[in-house]
C-alpha cells in the first residue's frame, strides 16, 4: 500500500505516514543487509492497531467526509451489481422532464422483479452536471412516484437507494413545487401496498431523502448519514458560520449508529475498513445480503400489514413530555 488508493483525508494521513516509515525501514534493511524484521513486524502490528483505532472511532465530521467520498458506490453501481442481467431503466415524469438526479427501473432480485429508485450523484464535474450533484428537482420526485405507482400496480417490491445532499434549491424547483412534490411522495409512499426498503448509501439529507424514503425498513451503510439538514447549513443558521460544521455534525446525531440507537432504522450495513470506497464491490455484497433478508421477510406480509407496519414505524417517532392530567 505504498501509493494511497485515494487522496487521504486529513484524519487518515498518520496511517499513511507510519506506513511510509515502515517501508523506508524495509528498504534500508534490504540495502544494508541488517535484519530489522522483528522491529518491522512489531511496528506493522502497532500501525495496524492504530489504523483500526482510527477507523473504528471516526468522528461524525469524518464520517461526513467518508459518506461524501466521490468513489463511494453510487445508486447505479449498486443496481448494476445487484442485478447484472436485468436492468430496465425507466425514464421521465411523463410531463416534461427526465430528472437524472433520480434513476430507477426494474431489476431482478430474489428471483422476482423489483423496482429500484435511487438518487444518483456523479463522479467528476461532467457527470455531476448531468445528475445535478444528486439534488432532485420536483420532476425527479414525480418520476420516482410514477415508478412507485408502477411497482404498486404490478406488485413489485420497491428498493430505494438514498444518496443526496437534499432537494435542489433553485428558482424552477420552487416554481414547480418542490415542497409539494416531496409532500405528495411522502403521503403516497405511505399508502403503497408493496414492500419498501430504503438503503442510505451516503448522504441522506432532509426532505430530499424522505421524498423516496418512506419505507417499511431502512438500512444505512456504516458510515452513511441521515440528517434533517446538512451540518454546514445547520452551522450557518445556529452558529451563524459554516465553520462550525464539525460541531453541528456532532450535535445533530446523524450517524447510522445514532439512528439505530433511536430505533429509526432497522440495521447497519458494514463497510470495509476505511469506508465503502476501499471496496465498493464488497460493500454492495453487504447491501445484497441486507436486502435479501429484509425483502424475504417483507414479501411475506399482506398489503394491509405492510401499510400498517410502515405507518406504525413512523407513528411512534417523537420525543416529548406529556402531563397525564390533561387529555
Amino acid at each position, binding site marked *: 500500500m505504498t501509493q494511497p488508493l485515494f487522496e487521504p483525508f486529513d484524519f487518515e494521513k498518520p496511517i499513511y505516514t507510519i506506513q511510509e516509515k515502515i517501508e523506508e525501514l524495509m528498504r534500508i534493511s534490504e540495502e544494508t543487509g541488517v535484519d530489522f524484521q522483528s522491529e518491522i513486524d512489531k511496528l506493522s502490528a502497532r500501525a495496524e492497531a492504530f489504523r483500526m483505532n482510527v477507523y473504528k472511532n471516526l468522528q461524525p465530521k469524518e464520517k461526513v467526509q467518508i459518506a461524501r467520498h466521490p468513489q463511494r458506490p453510487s445508486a447505479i453501481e449498486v443496481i448494476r451489481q445487484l442485478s447484472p442481467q436485468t436492468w430496465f431503466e425507466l425514464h421521465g415524469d411523463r410531463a416534461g422532464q427526465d430528472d437524472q438526479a433520480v434513476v430507477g427501473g426494474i431489476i431482478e432480485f430474489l428471483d422476482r422483479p423489483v423496482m429500484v429508485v435511487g438518487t444518483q450523484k456523479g463522479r467528476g464535474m461532467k457527470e455531476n452536471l448531468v445528475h445535478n450533484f444528486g439534488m432532485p428537482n420536483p420532476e425527479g420526485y414525480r418520476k420516482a412516484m410514477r415508478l412507485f405507482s408502477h411497482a404498486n400496480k404490478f406488485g413489485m417490491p420497491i428498493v430505494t437507494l438514498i444518496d443526496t445532499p437534499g432537494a435542489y*434549491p433553485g428558482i424552477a424547483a420552487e416554481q*414547480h413545487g418542490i415542497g409539494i412534490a416531496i409532500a405528495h411522495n411522502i403521503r403516497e409512499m405511505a399508502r403503497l401496498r408493496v414492500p419498501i426498503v430504503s438503503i442510505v448509501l451516503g448522504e441522506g439529507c432532509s426532505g430530499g431523502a424522505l421524498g423516496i424514503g418512506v419505507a417499511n425498513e431502512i438500512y444505512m451503510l456504516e458510515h452513511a448519514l441521515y440528517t434533517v439538514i446538512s451540518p454546514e447549513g445547520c452551522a450557518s443558521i445556529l452558529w451563524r458560520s459554516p465553520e462550525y460544521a464539525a460541531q*453541528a455534525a456532532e450535535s445533530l446525531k446523524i450517524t447510522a449508529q445514532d439512528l439505530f440507537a433511536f430505533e429509526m432504522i432497522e440495521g447497519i450495513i458494514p463497510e470495509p475498513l476505511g469506508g465503502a470506497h476501499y471496496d465498493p464491490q464488497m460493500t454492495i455484497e453487504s447491501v445484497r445480503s441486507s436486502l435479501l433478508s429484509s425483502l424475504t421477510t417483507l414479501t411475506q406480509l399482506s398489503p394491509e400489514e405492510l401499510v400498517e407496519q410502515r405507518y406504525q414505524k413512523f407513528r411512534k417517532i417523537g420525543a*416529548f413530555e406529556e402531563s397525564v392530567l390533561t387529555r
Partner: protein
Amino acid sequence: MPLGHWFASKRNNKASLNPESVNQKLTDGDFERLWIQCYNCSERFPKKDIQENRMVCSACGYHFRINSWERIHQITDSFEELNASLRPKDPLNFTDTAPYAERIEKTEAKTNLKEAVITGIGKISDTKFALAVMDFSYMGGSMGSVVGEKITRLIETALEENLSLIIFSSSGGARMQEGTYSLMQMVKTGAALAKLHEAGLLYISVLTEPTFGGVTASYGTLGDIIIAEEGARIGFAGRRVIEQTIRQKLPADFQTANYLLKYGQVDMVVQRQQLKESLYRLIQLHQKSLTLAGPVSSRQL
C-alpha cells in the same frame, strides 16, 4: 376559547407584533403600548383600531403577523384545545450557542406557549372542525416532535369524529435541535394525512407568513384545498440559500402568495378579512357534498 387563553392571547399580541409593528425610533412607552405603525406604509394607528381590523392595516392592507391565539379568535366562534400539555424534550441533548433545553424554557416564558402549534376543535356557528394553528413566535414555528405529534393526534381525532381539518401553517421548517426526530415528523404527519385522504375527509391547508422547509414539504402542501393568506411568503428553500446556490438575484415577488398562485401551487389567495367566511363556506359545501354522495369507498378510483 377558554377565558384564560383569551387573556393569554391579549398578552401575547405585543410579542407577536415584534419586530415589524414597533417603530424602533420611538422610545415613548405610551406610543408603543397604544399605537402601532404599519411596517409597509408607515401609517400610524391606535393599536385598538388595527386589532379590530383583524391586524390588517386599514390604509394599505398590510397583514401584520399574528399569533396563534389571535388567529383562533379571528376564525372561530369557539375553540376547545386538545393535547395542551405536550412539551418538547431534548432527545439529542443538543447545544449550539445555547443548550436547547434552555431555549425551550426561555421561549415558553417569553411566549407563554408550550409549543409552536395549538390544536383542538373549533366551531363556526354549528359547524365543528379540527383545527391546528402554528405560532411563529415559538422558535420560528419550527416543527419538532411535539408539533408532529399534536398534528398527528389532531388528524386522528378528525378521523375518529369525522371532522374536516384545517391547519394554519407558519414555520421556518424542521426544528434542527431535534435532528432526525424532527425530520421524521414530516413522514408521521404525511402518513396520517394519507389515512385522512383515504377516508375522504376534507383538509384545508392555510399557509401564512412565513411557511418554509419541512412544513411546506409535508402537511403544509397536502391540503385538498390550499389557501395562501395575502402577503404570506411560502417556499421550500429559503431565499438566501437559493441565492447562494444559483448565484443570481431573485425576483422581488419570489415566494409570495401571489407568486405561488401564478405558478399553480395554491388554490387561492385570501385576505384575512375573508378567511373565516371562506373556510366556513368551504367546509359546509364539502360536508353537504359528502352527505349527499354516499360512502367514500364507492368512489374509490
